[in-house]
C-alpha cells in the first residue's frame, strides 16, 4: 500500500502506544488515595470556615484526577482521549456555572 497508509495510526496524533502500568504504580496510587481519604475526614473535623468545602472538594478533585490519570490510564493515552475527558468536565462546568449564574444573580435585586 502507499506510504501514507497507516493502519495502526502510528503517526496519528490521536494514537498512543499501549502502555502497561505496573502493580507498583498501582500500589502507590492506592496508598495515596487512602491517605487522602484520611486527610479529608480529618479536615472535616477542623473548623476552617469557608475553607471546609473548598478543602474537601480540592481533595476529592485530586483523588479523582489521580484515579483518572493512573487507574484509568489517561496519562498514557492519546491526546484525543485526554481531550475527550477534558471536554466532558468542561460541559459539566458549563451546566453548573451557567445555571448558577441565574441563581446567584437573582439575589442581586430586581433592578
Amino acid at each position, binding site marked *: *500500500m*502507499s506510504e*501514507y*497508509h*497507516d*493502519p495502526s495510526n502510528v503517526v496519528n496524533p*490521536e494514537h498512543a502506544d499501549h502502555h502497561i502500568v505496573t502493580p507498583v504504580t498501582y500500589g502507590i496510587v492506592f496508598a495515596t488515595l487512602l491517605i487522602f481519604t484520611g486527610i479529608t475526614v480529618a479536615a472535616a473535623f477542623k473548623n476552617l470556615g469557608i475553607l471546609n468545602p473548598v478543602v474537601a472538594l480540592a481533595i476529592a478533585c485530586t483523588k479523582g484526577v489521580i484515579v483518572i490519570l493512573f487507574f484509568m490510564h489517561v496519562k498514557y493515552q492519546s491526546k*484525543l482521549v485526554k481531550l475527550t475527558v477534558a*471536554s*466532558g468536565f468542561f*460541559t459539566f462546568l*458549563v*451546566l453548573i456555572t*451557567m*445555571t448558577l*449564574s*441565574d*441563581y446567584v*444573580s*437573582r439575589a*442581586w435585586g*430586581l*433592578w
Partner: protein
Amino acid sequence: MSATSSTILNLPDQRTATLPKRTYINNEDGLLSWLFTGDHKRIAILYLISITFFFFIGGAFAGLIRLELLTPQGDLMASDTYNKMFSMHGIIMVFLFLVPSVPATLGNFLMPIMLGAKDLAFPKINLLSWYLYWLGGIVVLGALVLGGVDTGWTFTTPLSTHYLNTHVVTAATGVFILGFSSIFTGLNFIVTIHRMRAPGMTWFRMPLFVWSHYAASILMVLGTPVLAITLTLVALERLVGIGVFDPTKGGDPLLFQHLFWFYSHPAVYIMILPGMGVISEVISTFSRKRVFGYTAVAFSSVAIALFGFFVWAHHMFIMGVSNYSALVFSLLTMLVAVPSAIKTFNWAFTMQKGSITFETPMLYAFGFLGLFTIGGMTGVFLGALGMDIHLTETYFIVAHFHFVMVGGMLMAFLAGIHFWWPKMTGRMYPESLSKLAAVTTFIGFNLTFLPQFILGYLGMPRRYHAYPPEFQVLNVLSTAGATVLGVGYMLPLLYLAWSLKYGAIAGNNPWQATGLEWQIQSPPITENFIEIPIVDHEAYDYEWLEHKTAQEVTTVG
C-alpha cells in the same frame, strides 16, 4: 449527454442495465437476517421504515389538531383529548422522528461509506440503538394506548408532577429509553469519524455531511444524559413525592426548566445540523461546484454545537430567570445565530459560477434555504429580550420552530432521501411526480405556517383548544395549508414505494457526484468496499471526478 441539457441525471442504458447481483439487500435472506444484522446500511433501512411509521402517526395527530382549530369553539374533541393530541404530536415528532431522522437513516447509511470504512465502529451497539428506539417508541405508544399523556412534550413541573393523572411516568420512561438510543447513535458516529477514516481521509477531506453529523453527535452524547436525569427526577417526584421541583417542599420549579432546556435547546441543533449536512451535499452536487468556503461551513457546524450549550435559558426569559442572566443568555443567543447565517450565505455562493440543474433534491434544498432563512430570522425575534415577552408562548413560537424543524429539517430530510434513494435502492424515483411533491410541500408549508406568525403577533396562545373568533380566518388558512402539506408528504411515500419495483435502474453515480458513496455500486455490497479506498482528493473535487471518469472510459472502453 450534451452539455446544454438541463439535467445531470446520467442513467445507464435501461435496456441492458440490471441491478448488481450481490448487494447488502440480498446478501442474506429472511426477516431474521434483518433483525440481527450488524450492517449499518440494513440498520439504516430499518430505521427509515420505523421513523416513517412514527412520522405518519405524529402527522395524523397534527392533522387532528389542525382540524380542531378550524373553528373557534372546541367542538371536534374534548379539551383533554386535544391536550393529549398535541402532547403526543410533540413527543413523537421530537423524540421519535426529528432527533433520529437524518442521523439514524441517512447518517447510518452513508457515514461509513463517506469515510471509506466497512461499517460503523460498533455495529452491535448500532443495532441495539434501533431496538432501544423501538422499545422507547412502544412505551410512548403504550402511554397513548393506556389513555394518553397531556403534559406537552416539555413535561413542565409542577403540572406534570402533581396536577395530572395521565401516564406521565410511562411517557417519560419512553423518552428516557429513546435518549439512550440517541446517545448510542451519536457515540458510534464520533468513534467512527475519529477512528475509522480510510487512509488519506484527513479531517478537511471529509464531506460536510460528516462534519455536521460530528457536531450533532457531540450534542447527543453530552446533552441527552441531562434530559435522562431530569425525567428520572420527574418520575421520582410523581412516584415518591420527593420535592426537588416542588416549591411547597422547598424545591425550585425553575431548576427543572434549566435542566430540561440544557438538553432540549441543544436538541434543536441535533435536529437541524444533520439536515444542514444534507443541504451542503445536494447544493454542491447540483451546482457541479465545491462548497463555497468549506472550512467556514465545517467550523460553523462545530461552532453551533459549542455555542448550543450556552443559550438554553432563552426558553425561560419570562419564567423568572434573573434579569442579569437573561441579558447574558440573550447576547449568547445572538452569537449562535451568526454561524447559521454564515452557512446560508455559503450555500448561496456555492451556486455562483456553478452549472446548476434543478432535480428534485435541489428543489427541496431551495425550499430549505428560503424556509430556514425565515425560521432563523424569526429566532432572532425571540432571542431579543423585549420582543420575546410578547411573542413567546404564542403561535409565533409554533410557526418559528416549525419553520426550522419542518421547513428546514424535513425539507432537508426529503432532499436527502431523494438524493440518495438511487444509492440506497439502486432505482430512480419518478422525476416529474417528485418535483410536483416538492412544490406541493413548499406551498402547503407556507400556507400552513405563515398565518401562524400573524396569529402569534396577535397574541393567540399556543396549545389552545378553543380561541376567540377573530383568529378564525387565519386558522382556516393554516388548516387548509396543512391539507396541502399532508398531500405533499403522502406523495413521496407512494411513488418511492412504487419505484422500489418499477423505478429506472440508477447505476453507480446517477448524479455524477464526487462523494465516495457514489464511486461504489448501488445498492452497495455488505461491507461497502471491496478494498478500502485510499483517498487522495478533497470532498467536492469535480476535477478529480472528471479525470477519473475519463480514465475509466479509456481503460474500460
